[in-house]
Every structure is written in C-alpha cells, then in structure tokens.
C-alpha cells in the first residue's frame, strides 16, 4: 500500500509540472506581439507598454516561466491585467460559490444515480432497466444550459417554488444558500447522475453474478440484505472512482450553469476574463483547477488501491 502511494505521488510531480507549462504556455499561443494583441484595438502606446512590463515580455520564455513558477508555488499568481487586483484573491473570492454548487450537485447526482443504477442492474433487462438506460443516454446528451434554462423557467418562474437566479453566501443565510443552489445544482447533477447510474448498473450486474452473492441468495437471505450487504458494497468501488472523476467535469460545466443562474463563481469570472483577454487570471484559473484535479485523481487512485488490494501490484 505504501508503495502504491509512493508510486502514485511520483507520477503526480511530472503531471503537475506539465500543468504549469500548459497554464504558462497559453500566453505563447497569442499570435503576434502578445502585448499589442491583449491591449486590444484602441489601446494607447502606454497601455501596451504597461502590459509588456506586467507580463515581463522582454525577458526570454524560460526565465519568465521560472519566475512565474516560483511565484506560483508560493501562491502568488500575479495581478489581473486591467483591474490590477491579485489573481489569487479573486479566485479565493469566487471559489465558495463554485465549490458550493459542485458539492451540492455531487450529492444530488449520487442520490439520483446510485439508486437508479442499482435498481436497473438488479432487475437487468426489465422494462424499468430499459427505461433507465434510455433515460441516461438522453440525459448525457441534453446540454446543461438547456436543462438549466428549462428548470429556471418551469420551477423558478412559472411555478415559483424556488428562486431562479442569484446566490447567497452560506455565512449570510444557510437557508437561502441552500434554496438558491438547488436548481443550478440539479441542472448540473443530471449528466453526472446518468454517468453514475451507468457505472452502478454495470457494477451491480458484475457483482450479482459472483458466487458469494448467489450463495447468500441460495441461503434464503432477504433481497434487501443481499443487495445492501453483499452487492452494493462491492459494486460501489468503481463508482467512487467515477464520482472522483466527475469533479473535473463539474468544474467545467459549472461555467455554463453559473452564467445561466447568475452565480458569482469562478466560472462566470473566467468568462469575463476571456472577454477581457485577462491572461494572468486565465493562467491562474487553469493552474489552480489543473492542480486540484491532478491531486483528486491521485487520491482516487490511492483509495481504489486501498479498497481493492488486487490493483496494488500492477
């Protein structure tokens, strides 16, 4: 087990380094003179010069990367190009809303996906199974912004059950915080739920055929006991991995959901940054999210090895 942890952590280092290269290298994709391009059509000579100084474009690439990396490691991601506010504090301000949204939708997608997948797998081939299989196939294909808009319209506006847009911090009012996050989190959760349902279904079908489950059933144990104690416990292992992998997807899709539900999270800030060509903020966000996901994936792999000793060796 210790060897697994060590080996996995060793793989993390080059990955993290590459993520920093990607984040920093984004600037090199800018065609022509980055300073001129970023400043935009109507920029004055001084503005262009200011951007050149801020990004230190007169220095060679490698030395710029070196100082950027050593700053980043110490948590300094530079300042936004136009507002001059530090990127770290902006990300920090926006993170709670995004993390709340993703947390809620992870919970919801597990609450929807695991029972649905269990029932479908346990009753494989039944009408309910076929219905759920078709449902998950369609669920994956519906764009998250369509689900979001329809939910906002029907539940938020027409029925008026829940507020359709806006965000309230948990410290201000936990009740309002939860109420306002339900709709966006639900919209975000649907694709994830479909994925988790598929994985759970496959896991249940796999485990259900194993001898110990058949013995338990033959011994006359109640279905609920066989399902809960023997089948689900084992079928859940791959599901944990999927839930872990969902986090990256959810971060990405939250960009769209935040835009629709007017949530002041990281995603909506990123869109502003993209429109403003705010390269330091874009770099900082890519670096931060890439790092988080690399670490989450490593954690998921390690926990997989913990739950399933057979994979430790390979």
């Amino acid at each position, binding site marked *: 087990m210790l060897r697994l942890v060590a080996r996995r952590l060793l793989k993390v280092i080059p990955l993290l380094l*590459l993520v920093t290269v990607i984040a920093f290298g984004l600037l090199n994709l800018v065609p022509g003179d980055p300073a001129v391009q970023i400043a935009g059509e109507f920029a004055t000579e001084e503005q262009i010069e200011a951007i050149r100084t801020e990004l230190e474009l007169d220095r060679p690439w490698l030395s710029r990367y070196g100082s950027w990396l050593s700053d980043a490691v110490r948590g300094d991601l530079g300042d936004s190009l136009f507002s001059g506010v530090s990127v770290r504090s902006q990300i920090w301000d926006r993170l709670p809303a995004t993390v709340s949204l993703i947390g809620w939708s992870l919970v919801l997608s597990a609450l929807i996906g695991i029972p649905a997948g269990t029932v479908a797998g346990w009753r494989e081939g039944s009408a309910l199974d076929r219905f759920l299989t078709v449902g998950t196939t369609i669920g994956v*294909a519906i764009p998250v912004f369509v689900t979001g808009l329809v939910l906002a319209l029907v539940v938020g506006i027409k029925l008026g059950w829940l507020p359709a847009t806006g965000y309230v911090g948990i410290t201000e009012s936990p009740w309002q915080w939860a109420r306002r996050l339900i709709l966006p989190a639900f919209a975000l959760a649907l694709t994830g739920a479909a994925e988790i349902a598929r994985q759970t279904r496959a896991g249940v079908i796999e485990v259900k055929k194993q001898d110990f489950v058949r013995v338990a059933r033959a011994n006359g144990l109640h279905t609920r006991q066989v399902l809960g104690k023997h089948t689900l416990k084992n079928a859940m292992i791959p599901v944990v991995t999927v839930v872990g992998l969902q986090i990256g997807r959810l971060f*990405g899709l939250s960009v769209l959901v935040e*835009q629709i539900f007017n949530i002041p999270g990281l995603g909506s800030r990123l869109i502003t940054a993209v429109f403003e060509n705010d390269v330091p903020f874009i770099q900082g966000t890519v670096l931060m999210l890439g790092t988080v996901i690399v670490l989450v994936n490593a954690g998921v792999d390690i926990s997989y090895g913990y739950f399933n000793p057979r994979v430790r060796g390979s």
Partner: protein
Amino acid sequence: MTTATPDAAPSVGPRSTAASRPETRWGRFVRRFRRQRGAVAALAFIVIVVVCAVFAPWVAPKDPIDQDLSASLAGPSSEYWLGADRLGRDTLSRLIFGARFSLLAAVQAVLVATVLGVPIGIVAGLARGWVDAIASTIADAVLSIPAIVLALAIIGVLKPNLTNAMIAIGIVYAPRLFRVVRSAAISVREETYIEAARAGGVGTLTIARTHVLPNVASPLVVQISLALGFAVLAEAGVSFLGLGVQPPDASWGVMLGQSTAELEDHPILVLAPGIAIMLAVLSFNVLGDGLNDSLGREIRRE
C-alpha cells in the same frame, strides 16, 4: 440494445447466398448494424441534418438573417413554422442554416483532434519506452484540466471566433483519441505478423501504415462519432457564451444564447435549438455505441 442473440441468420437481406461463400467484413458489419434500430435511426437523423445543412438555401423557407420586424416574436404559424425571433427572423430557417455552422464546427474540431491525437497515438503505442511515457503524461496533463475551462482559456488568449473555438475544442479532445489509438496500437504491436514484418526489414512507418492503422480504424471510427457529439455540445456551449460563432451568423448555440431573454414568454425560441442540439448529440452518441457493437471483434462480451 437487444439481448445478445447469436449471429443467427436474420430473415432479411441477401443472407441466403452467404451460406455458400464466407461473409465479408463489410457484410458482417452491415448485418450487425442493421439489427440495432437505435443506431440506424440515429444515422438516419444525422443524414437528414447533413442534407438539410448542405442544401440549406434550397431547403430553408426563408433567409436566416432577413429581418421582418412586423413578425417580431411571432408564434408558430403557416408562414413561420417555428415562429420568429425578436428581429422577426424565421426560427426554422435559422435552425437549418445553424446546422451548417454547428456541423462544420464539429467537423473542424474533430479534424484537429484527429490530426493531433492519431499519429502521436500510433507512434507512442508502437514505440513504447520514453516516447510513450512523455506523450502519455502530456495527454494526462491536458485531460486533468476541465475541457471547457481549457477551451475557454485557449479562446481567451486567441480571439473569440468560430475557428479558434474549434481549434481549442480539438486540442482538448485530442488526448482522448490519443488514448484509444495508443491502446489499439499496443494491442496489435505484439502480433506475430508485425514481428514477421519487422524481421523482414519493413520500416516502422510502413508497419504503422499497413498493419497498425487498419487495426486502429474500428475503435477510431467509434471514437470519432462520440467526438462529433462532444464537439456539437462544446460548440453550443461556447457559442452560447458568445465566444464561438459571431452574429449575424448563427449556430444552434448562438440561437440559444440570443433568446434566453425571451425564455419566459417565448420558450420555443430556446427549446427549438436546444432540442436540435440534444438530438444531434444523442444521435452521434447512439451511432457511436452502435458502431462499437457492430465493429467489435469476433469474441464479444455476452
């Protein structure tokens, strides 16, 4: 899908003659594919959309950019089958022309992903060693950044327009194709006929072209279908945010983004492009699954 009936003779088709001579690979594929009604329907839908997109000027009842303010926000009628938007532009015509942008964009993105992912995947899978290690780590690093975030970041440093958006989405998807191609290449690498070719002095490039590529083709076709679904969805998302296709041109994503303000009173303006996107993505996904089941090797899961 239907349960795995063995490849017994279906009642239709020229199967009766097949008893006398062995079935070709293509024949087997067609027979298997035809059994999957979902995939056939998906293919039919895609063909219809492609035909509409190609012949849009002849198929569409009106000009998609032509404004008729007297018809502003008109409901569905015999003249405007799906109504009109705030500027009085015919929704149906915009959908038909929008298919051009959405499909073209998806093809562009998948082309970029293929050009990047396939050759590198074949080389990495054949060469193994440090080449493979480096390429795989890069793929892993790109995959660990959320696809939409990376695409937005690339668009952010380039310029928001359709081509840049599709290059971004192609780059983001390339590692997925890379992985599939690489593992297919690895699985054929140890085959005896490759060893024989090597021993016979055939160069690596020739081996890659004549032996590996054909074996990679089946999983690749499946992945390309799924990639097209991903690209349609991604293009819609990026254009919805205003970072893809630029008005007055309109893809389905642009139509959606422009009509969010009309959602409450004229939901059809949002639902029409939304359903179009959903059906297109669904079709590519179902087609991909169907191809996967039809192209599989002889030994299949029960």
